[in-house]
C-alpha cells in the first residue's frame, strides 16, 4: 500500500466501483460481453503492442499478462478503461482480464503513484535490517504524491540485502540513510543510487575472480549493452560496492582496475 494513501476511486454505494451495481440484472443478456471494437477507442500504440504480443503465442489468451503490462504502462494502472481496451483488442471479456489482473502483485487495480519503490522485506533482507529501511523509506516519501512505496516479497537479490527495486532497478545494500537520497534522485529524475545498482555488481564467488585474469578491465565504450561486470557508470568515480567484503585481487589486476578509474 502506498505511504501517501491511495487516491480515491469513485464509489457507487456499498463500496462498489461498478456503476449500476444495484440495478436489476437482465437475465436475457449475455453475462460475459466482449466490448464492441467500434465503440471502445484504443490508443494505436497500445493496440499494436497487444497485437504483437498475441502473435507470439499459439493461443491469443497467453498474451493477457503482456497486454496488461502494456495497458498499465499506458494508463498508469489497470483502470476499468484499460481493461476494456485490452479486452477489445484481445476479444476477451473484461471479467476474465480483471480476474487475471487481480491475481498478480505487479498489476495495480487501484490508481497509484507513477513511481514504484518496492522494498523487499522477506527473510534474508529483514535479517539485515530491511524493516528499518522500509520505515525510513516510507517516512522519506511521505509527502511525495509521485512515489508509491510498498513492501514486497523476495525480489531475488538477497546478495545485496536489504534491497529495493526502484522502478525496476535493483539497488542495495541499503541503509536507512539512503532513503532520503533515493527520493532526491527520483525527484531530480537522476539515476537512482547508481553506485549501489545491482547491474554493476561482480560475482561474489572468489573462484571467478581468480580466473578473470585473461580479460582486461571493462570498457564502457565497447560494451554498451554489457553493463554487468563491475562496470562504472559514465563519469562515476564512486567506489563500486563489489562483493560485500574485500576479495584479494592479484596485484596487477588491482593496478589495472585503479588505472581504469
Amino acid at each position, binding site marked *: 500500500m502506498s505511504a501517501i494513501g491511495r487516491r480515491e476511486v469513485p464509489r457507487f454505494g456499498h463500496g462498489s466501483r461498478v456503476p449500476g451495481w444495484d440495478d436489476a440484472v437482465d437475465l436475457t443478456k449475455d453475462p460475459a460481453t466482449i466490448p464492441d471494437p467500434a465503440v471502445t477507442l484504443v490508443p494505436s500504440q497500445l493496440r499494436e503492442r497487444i497485437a504483437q504480443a498475441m502473435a507470439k503465442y499459439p493461443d491469443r489468451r497467453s498474451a493477457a499478462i503482456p497486454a496488461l503490462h502494456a495497458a498499465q504502462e499506458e494508463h498508469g494502472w489497470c483502470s476499468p478503461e484499460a481493461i476494456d481496451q485490452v479486452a477489445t483488442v484481445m476479444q476477451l471479456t473484461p471479467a476474465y482480464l480483471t480476474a487475471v489482473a487481480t491475481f498478480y502483485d505487479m498489476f495495480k487495480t487501484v490508481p497509484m503513484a507513477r513511481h514504484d519503490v518496492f522494498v523487499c522485506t522477506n527473510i534474508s533482507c*529483514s*535479517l539485515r535490517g530491511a524493516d528499518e529501511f522500509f520505515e525510513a523509506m516510507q517516512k522519506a516519501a511521505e509527502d511525495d504524491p509521485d512515489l508509491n512505496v510498498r513492501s514486497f516479497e*523476495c525480489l*531475488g537479490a538477497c*546478495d545485496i540485502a536489504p534491497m529495493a527495486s526502484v522502478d525496476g532497478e535493483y539497488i542495495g545494500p541499503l541503509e536507512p540513510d539512503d532513503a532520503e537520497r533515493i527520493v532526491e534522485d527520483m525527484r531530480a529524475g537522476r539515476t537512482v543510487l547508481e553506485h549501489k545498482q545491482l547491474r554493476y555488481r561482480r*560475482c561474489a564467488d572468489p573462484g571467478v*575472480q581468480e580466473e*578473470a585474469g585473461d580479460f582486461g578491465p571493462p570498457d564502457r565504450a565497447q560494451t554498451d549493452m554489457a553493463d*554487468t561486470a563491475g562496470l562504472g557508470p559514465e563519469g562515476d568515480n564512486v567506489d563500486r560496492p563489489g562483493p560485500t567484503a574485500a576479495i584479494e585481487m592479484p596485484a596487477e589486476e588491482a593496478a589495472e582496475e585503479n588505472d581504469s578509474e
Partner: protein
Amino acid sequence: MKILFDRIDEPGLNTLEVYERRGGYESLRKALTMAPDEVLQQISDSSIRGRGGAGFRMGQKASFLPHGNMDKYLVCNADESEPGTFKDRELMQKSPHMLIEGILIASWAAEISRAFIYIRGEYDHQADILEAAIAEARDAGYIGEKILGSDHTISLVLHRGAGAYICGEETGLLDSLEGKRGNPRLKPPFPAIEGLYHGPTLINNVETLATVPHIIRMGGKEYAQIGTETSTGTKLVSVSGDVQRPGNYEIELGMPSREIIYGLAGGPFEGREIKFWFPGGSSSPVLTAADLDLPYDFDSMAKAGSMLGSGAIIVVDDSHTILEVMHKLVKFYAHESCGKCVPCREGTRWTLRMVQRIQAGEATPMDLDIMASVQEQIIGNCLCVLGDAMAMPVGSMVAKFRPELEAEIEAARERAEGAEMADVIPVGVADEHAGPYPVH
C-alpha cells in the same frame, strides 16, 4: 571448479560476439550432428538433477515425453521467487546465451519445436538482456527453421510474469503462461504428458538448462564424474542472511556445508554464532549448527530431514529470535497462497494468526502442539507444495526450537500482562494491590 560461472564477469559475455569467441554455440553444433536420442542419452548419462527445487533427474523427465510428430513444448522456469534464491538472476544477466544454447539443445533432444522462457516480472533488467540475446541468436540463425542446416526447427519466446510466487510451481506456471490466473493443476497428468496447451511439455529450471551445453561439451559420463555419485555436477548456491559475504557461489555437490557458509560466504559476523539455517530456500526444514558438517548434496540433505531445494542457504545468527523469522516466513506463504486448496489457503492464514497470537502474548505452550498438528494436516493434502513449503519449515522450527518458543510465549504473555497492569492500576496504588489480577 567453475563450469557455469567460468569467467562469468567477463564484460560483454551477454553479447553473442563474446560468447561465440569463448566457444559458445559449439555444443549446439555438436548436438545437431547427433541424433536426438543420442543427445538425450548424454543428458541421462550425466545424471543431472533438476536445479529448481525438486531434484528430479532431467534425462528421465525428458524421456517421459512421447515421441513422434506433435506439438510439444519446452518451458524454461525462470520465475525464481523462492526466498533466498538469486542464482538464475545472475546467470541470465551475465550469460544469457548459455541458457539459450541449453534450451536449443534440450529441445533438440526431446524433439520440441516451441520453447518459452517464463521469467518473473520483477526481473526487468534480466528480461531485457535475454530479449536482446534471443534477438541476436535469431539473427545469427541459431533460432528459427532448420537451424544450422539441421532438421531442428525451434522458436523461442520470452514471457514476463507479473509477480506471483505460485507461478514458480510448474503447473501454476503453465496456467499463467496460458494467460490465466496461476493456479496449480491436478497431477497426474504430469506436464510431460499433458502440459502447456494440453501438449507434452518439458519444464526445467534455468540452471539445469544452462548446464546442458556443458554436458554435451564434456560428455555425459565425464560430467557425472563431478560431485557425488547421486548428486552429480556443480551447483550454484545462493548464500544470504547473516553472513559476511552473501552471494552466489558455484560449488561441487558434496562440499561440506561448513565450507560453503564459513569458507566461501565468510561465516556469521564477529561475535555471532549460527543459530539455524535453511539449506534450500525458505521452504526447506531448518537445520541447526550441529548439521554444518553435512556434505551439501541432495541425499545428505534429505537424510538430515531437509532438502537441497533450489540451493539457497539462508543463515540466521543468534541475534534473531526464532519467532521473528517464523513470522516473516508464514506471512510470505499466507500472502502467496493462490487460494485454490483449502488446507493451504486456510492453513497458512491460520498459522499466521497463531504466530501473531504468540506475539500478542495470548498463546499458551499448548498452542505449539496445535500449530504442529495443523502443519501435518497441510502436508500432502493440496494440489501443489506451496502449503507444504510453509508447513515443513514451521514444523521443523517448532520441533527443534520448542523451549525457545515456549520461553517467548511466556515473555510475550508477561509483556502483555505488564502493559495491562500499567494501564489499569494508577501509580502508587500498585503496591497495595499486588495480587495476581488487575484491579478494576
